[in-house]
């Protein structure tokens, strides 16, 4: 029973933790917000 209880807690918690880590990955990549397109000056 003890092991079942641990499984009942660990499996969903592990899944939720994995999802959160997946969600956090972009924070540690070096990308920033897409830069706005360069302003093109109209030709005279």
């Amino acid at each position, binding site marked *: 029973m003890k092991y079942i209880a641990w499984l009942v807690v660990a499996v969903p918690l592990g899944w939720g*933790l994995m999802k959160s880590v997946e969600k*956090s990955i972009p924070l540690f990549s070096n990308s920033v917000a897409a830069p706005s397109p360069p302003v093109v000056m109209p030709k005279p």
Partner: protein
Amino acid sequence: MCIGQVYGFSVFNKPLSAELGVPITSVQYAYQIALVMLGLSAATFGKWVERSGPRKTMLASCLCFCGGLLLASLGTQWKSLWLVLFGYGFVGGIGLGLGYIAPVSTLVKWFPDRPGMATGMAIMGFGGGALIGSPLGQELMKRFALGNDSGASSAFMVMAAIYACFMLFGAFTVRVPAEGWKPEGFVAKTASNQSEMITTANVTVDTAWKTPQFWLLWTVLCMNVSAGIGILGRATDICQDMFGVSAAIGAGFTGVLSIFNMSGRFIWSSVSDFTGRKVVYAIYFILGAVLYFVLPWTQHTQSRTIFVICTALIISMYGGGFATIPAYLKDMFGTYQVGAIHGRLITAWSMAAVIGPLLVNKLFDSRVAAGVPKGEAYNGTFYMMCGVLGIGLVANLLVRPVDPKHHIR
């Protein structure tokens, strides 16, 4: 872990808004009502919980929480916002309050040598529920979505079934230790060789809430929660506004905070078993204020890494504050009705959940209206949080042992 799903309710905001044809703010009432009912039911039913024991309470919690999800499912099916608010908010909220305080007394009795760690585990479960509830809701809606149907109704129904299985498993396996049970090798301290901040006597809930200690701890919890909500409530926005990052990175920041919120509950409350509760709360308040003070500098220098480290630490202490309070109450008032006393103290959380975001949003809006750039508009909020933590620190320092005249003879 099951009732912590309430933290993940926001994933239903947009789908429910579209399906019920109401603004998102109306859907969010369900979450707010649920949190208010959590505080009210924990305060009201605390004595009943102590009398009835954890099994009956967990069954009642399961009935209310899962029943609330079923009513929300029906409400979504019948396009009735009122039924969703009544089901998820009112009925489900009662389940939250009962479930939140149900394990506290039992765990303190099972771990007389490590009460902080024990209650930390229970409160960590609530934080962990947020990590599960949010992706579970999204996955289920993705699976059941069909045409105009967002899948929210079916998701609520399946969640009710899944959570009922887990909660019933918990209810039927929970045991209360025999009277006077002690772990092997544990020697209970007596009044003479124990810190004066840990009582060996007991105080009833009706007496406890008339003592200054109760209200000082109420203030301690309220200030600690208000300060944490300052960041949690707008985590994605803060990250995007201060560092100009994309929405995906902002969401990643929220993910990191969730992990630290959960792990802080276990780690800090375990630390409190060695340092004492008063010291650990002093650390939350002093270190928290220092970290909030540093945040504007991280924006000025665009030090994203230091910003993430500081905020993660702040949120870990926010979680730690939640998790350590039951052990602090046990130290002050004994184990006799600690669950019921904890239930009444939870009203501090309900209050903080209302005033925290209100303060943050009002100050931010006024700064933006005054022409301050968005990235710098949070600075005032951060300094205000230092003040909020200062109030908590003073309240904590004023906590003294309960007058023996209040002890049960």
